[in-house]
């Protein structure tokens, strides 16, 4: 049995780097997908709206674990075997896309209706209204919940080991299997997650305060 020493701690820290990389990629791809689904969700074409709504509802009503398994085994059934990092990225991107689509749709809908009216009254087209009036405001509104969701994403990367990827959590478990010092190991692992998530949570709350302050007129 090994002892929990520096090499083990460094292994855990390096894996934290992978967790961050995974988070970044899933957030990036998920944002693009999420934006697309948000637009679909607000479209005038009924089947597009329903499709997007269905997609979002399903993803939000199942555990992230199932999103991981379904995308992994789903792709398997189609004959596509992805290496662990790509499998994890793809699955998490799907998870992210549904939640961000909902957040962003909510942000667009919370721009006051009078802004739409004022813009339309100035003879703007719908596209111009979105581009110059609605989206700039919606993006501001969406910042606190989007950053808040980023925290959820980081925490949910902790289960990607089920598709074979060695992230921060898996690294901790591997070291635990070798050293049986769960308390110290998971304290370190927890502390690293906390160090990543806590500043983001604070940022989200700060952004919310700034937003509320500028709205109080």
């Amino acid at each position, binding site marked *: 049995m090994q002892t929990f020493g520096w090499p083990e701690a460094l292994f855990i820290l390096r894996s934290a780097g992978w967790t961050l990389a995974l988070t970044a990629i899933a957030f990036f791809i998920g944002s693009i997908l999420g934006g697309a689904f948000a637009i679909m969700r607000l479209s005038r074409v009924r089947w597009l709206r329903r499709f997007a709504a269905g997609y979002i509802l399903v993803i939000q009503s199942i555990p992230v674990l199932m999103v991981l398994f379904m995308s992994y085994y789903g792709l398997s059934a189609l004959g596509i075997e992805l290496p662990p990092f790509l499998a994890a990225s793809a699955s998490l991107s799907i998870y992210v896309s549904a939640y961000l689509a909902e957040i962003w749709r909510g942000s667009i809908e919370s721009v006051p209706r009078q802004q739409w009216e004022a813009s339309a009254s100035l003879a703007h087209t719908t596209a111009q209204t979105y581009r*110059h*009036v609605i989206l700039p*405001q919606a993006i*501001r509104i969406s910042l606190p919940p989007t950053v808040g969701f980023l925290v959820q994403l980081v925490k949910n990367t902790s289960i990607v080991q089920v598709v074979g990827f060695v992230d921060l959590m898996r690294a901790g478990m591997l070291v635990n299997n070798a050293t049986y010092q769960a308390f110290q190991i998971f304290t370190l692992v927890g502390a690293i997650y906390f160090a990543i998530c806590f500043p983001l949570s604070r940022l989200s709350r700060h952004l919310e305060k700034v937003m509320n302050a500028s709205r109080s007129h």
Partner: protein
Amino acid sequence: MPAVLIEGIHKRFGSLEVLKGVSLSVDPGQVVAIIGRSGSGKSTLLRCINGLETFHAGKIEVAGHMMTQDPTKLRALRKDVGIVFQSYNLFPHLTVGQNIMLSPRITKNVPQAEALALAKEVLAQVGLSEKFDSYPDNLSGGQQQRVAIARSLAMQPKVMLFDEVTSALDPELTGEVLLVMEKLAKGGMTMLLVTHEMNFARTVADTTVFMHQGLIWESGPSKELFANPQTPELANFVKAGAH
């Protein structure tokens, strides 16, 4: 050729009929005040004129455009009809100058330099030249409303609609807005204003229209209307003051 021609407008909200056959004709340069209780349909009528509300019977012709829901034609109509709202509705993420310049630039392709000059001119007209680079957040209600008027003026409309534009303002701020509106009226702008400001209607508006239960109950030259109400409803309304 009237600037605004409204004929037989009927409008329903669900099962409630809010406009029961309204007809009105406004000549170019005429200033018409529309007064009445809440729920009389006055704001709804005004909003029909620039297409923010639809109607299921009747027709409206304004500034030479026939009212339609066809998007392209509606936009052409809206370039000639300006509206100022009770809650100003300035774009909070743009400065005052940017608020005013936006529409001319993107709907009429006015080049930047020209739009800038135009914006400065209308802003001077409402007496707020020094606020060009301020954000709406930093302005008082009265100032924001004047900017809203300038924003509409920048489109060089033929008709201006005012929807209870002083109702949300503190009393000491209504004066500055009414002054701007009076200047506009004297300058020959065709104006329709829904208002609770009885004095303003009486002194500045050529014609006053009193609405009641979705119909034009009484209308006529302002001074005459206020001095000699023909119907008990208007008499009571005038006696009670505004609201």
